[in-house]
């Protein structure tokens, strides 16, 4: 029998669980300002996340999906992207959104039941959060196709969870990205759990990255809690995309340290021991240790950063809580560019109803 194809999957990790280098670090480690900016974004994201959960618990925000454990990969994506690239998120990408210029109060508005939370003036081409799992992958290849049609030197980064890689949308999209040689980077954020379904039940494949082989694009595994491994993979994949060399799939292995959302209770399906073990691999602590060990970070700087993040988040919460609701007629005003005649009577009725005193308080 003739061997037609064989493959291997690379897996990259540079720091051990305590932040000590396992060997030579990539060139990204020498860019101290960028590393410090990454660390700051991770801490801000985690501070925001804790506050958003607290708001939900106290009835001030709707169901919210915690980003706990994704701060490293989300930050690496945000740093590697050019402003002119397009980000196509799923729904646990807070760390990236912050770097793209989405305001914290906008994220609270979105989860707080207000469509204006997706307006995003700082990154007007980024796609809004995609709740239907993996559907964003098809949109990402559409955006990348538009760039190809116009022969633009831009690229797309698309995130998807490990559960999402089971859907046709993901597989069809990486397949098209290979067939059409599209400037897109897929980041499969493998946090081990799709609500209660463990990674092992999603696929018999040993890695998610190897699904790239079937699509004709490169696939790599990185330790998604290792900032250097993750940002290096993103930098490389985006350089490929910008250079007209096509798509890449990166599997970033991390762990969902929180519940799926505030409506979930992960103690129903996973052990305290597993969670404790995952916390030992936390990527923020790892990078903090590395920065400290290499003389880039002091305890007083940490204290100041924590304080600064708290103030930033508190200001965003105030802005969110003081934002008036839209008039109810907005539910019809953005359906079409121009309201069709067929809907005018309904809008009039709604306008009349909205002048009545609210009895929901």
């Amino acid at each position, binding site marked *: 029998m003739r061997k037609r194809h064989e493959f291997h999957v690379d897996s990259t990790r540079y720091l051990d669980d305590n932040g000590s280098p396992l060997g030579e670090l990539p060139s990204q480690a020498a860019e101290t300002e960028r590393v410090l900016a990454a660390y700051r974004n991770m801490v801000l994201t985690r501070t925001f996340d804790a506050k958003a959960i607290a708001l939900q618990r106290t009835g001030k925000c709707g169901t919210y999906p915690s980003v706990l454990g994704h701060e490293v990969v989300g930050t690496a994506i945000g740093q590697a992207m050019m402003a002119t690239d397009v980000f196509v998120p799923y729904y646990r990408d807070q760390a990236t959104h912050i770097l793209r210029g989405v305001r914290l109060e906008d994220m609270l508005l979105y989860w707080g039941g207000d469509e204006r939370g997706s307006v995003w003036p700082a990154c007007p081409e980024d796609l809004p959060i995609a709740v239907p799992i993996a559907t964003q992958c098809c949109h990402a290849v559409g*955006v990348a*196709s538009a*760039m190809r049609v116009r022969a633009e030197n831009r690229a797309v980064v698309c995130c998807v969870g490990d559960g999402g890689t089971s859907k046709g949308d993901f597989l069809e999209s990486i397949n098209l990205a290979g067939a*059409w040689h599209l400037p897109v980077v897929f980041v499969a954020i493998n946090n081990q759990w799709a609500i209660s379904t463990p990674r092992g039940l999603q696929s018999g494949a040993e890695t998610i990255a190897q699904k790239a082989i079937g699509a004709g694009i490169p696939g790599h595994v990185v330790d998604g809690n290792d900032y250097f491994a993750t940002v290096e993979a993103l930098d490389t994949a985006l350089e490929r995309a910008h250079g007209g060399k096509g798509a890449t799939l990166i599997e970033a292995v991390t762990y969902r340290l929180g519940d799926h959302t505030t409506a979930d209770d992960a103690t129903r399906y996973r052990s305290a021991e597993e969670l404790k073990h995952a916390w030992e691999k936390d990527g923020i602590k790892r990078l903090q240790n590395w920065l400290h060990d290499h003389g880039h970070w002091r305890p007083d700087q940490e204290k100041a950063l924590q304080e600064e993040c708290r103030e930033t988040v508190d200001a965003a919460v105030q802005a969110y809580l003081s934002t008036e609701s839209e008039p109810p007629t907005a539910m019809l005003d953005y359906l079409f560019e121009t309201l069709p*005649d067929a809907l005018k009577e309904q809008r009039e009725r709604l306008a009349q109803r909205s002048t009545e005193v609210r009895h929901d308080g």
Partner: protein
Amino acid sequence: MTDNTLRKVTLVEAINMALHWEMAHDDSVVVLGEDIATNGGVFRATVGLKETFGFRRVMDTPLAENLIAGTAVGMATQGLKPVAEFQFLGFIYAGMEHIVSHASRMRNRTRGRLHCPLVYRAPFGGGIHAPEHHSESTEALFAHVPGLRVVIPSSPQRAYGLLLAAIRNPDPVVFLEPKRLYRAVTQSVADDGQALPLDTCFTLLEGEDVTLITWGPCVQETLQAAEQLAEQGVGCEVIDVATVAPLDRETLLCSVAKTGRAVIVHEACRNGGVGAEIAASLAERAFLDLQAPVVRVSGYDTVMPYYRNEAFYLPRVEDIVSAVEQVISL
């Protein structure tokens, strides 16, 4: 005076003509689908586009309808105007999630920051002895979705003008082409880039006694029925709804205010069909004008039969005539 842009064409040729016109006049228009580039589409609706506009704008996709629907959404958010072809309406359902949950909602959920100026084209309806899954009429599924336009031409002229309007419209349009009319009739169509209005019914025939409301393939049978009824002295007003969503109720109400009687004709199943919405609107807003109950002539509430029994499913001219005789006698 001879208009040298005037061409005698079939409905499918009119579609092709409109695509050529709009691609030549708007660089942001692209077309994508299965077998649409080199092969020119299984019905030849896209013949010649790849040769004229190149493979960058005329894209053969992998065989994945969900992907086609979603890729068009992504393209549209970038300001392209994708016209995506589904080979048959029966295969569009894999893409429903993108149509229902994304294309129709993008403008609303980003408060106008992004929108989807795209067209999903699909041949639909029975009458050509096609295999299973090739003959259904499920326009009501799409008409139920807020944020979508559902447009159905019934002649070469309206196919040309409505497709231009659909492509130019800044919101998503599901454009359903009655495939048994693809080559059934020819008509002179001016290739002048003139679009027809959307959200507007077309009154094809004026009459005083009864309003016949229809769209798509059944426009043919309805016009034939009106002709027969005219010989019996019954004046039928025939209205081609054309845009089944959003619905131009005013034209229908004005007509029924005049005639006092209405028969709705569609090929789709009756239950929950667009005809039901029209009948309900007439009952709500024209009850006092009505001299007889509104009657529907439609397909049966069943799975579209394979083609041996297809003729028993499709509304016939005599069904329409007899429905009119029923409402006239009251």
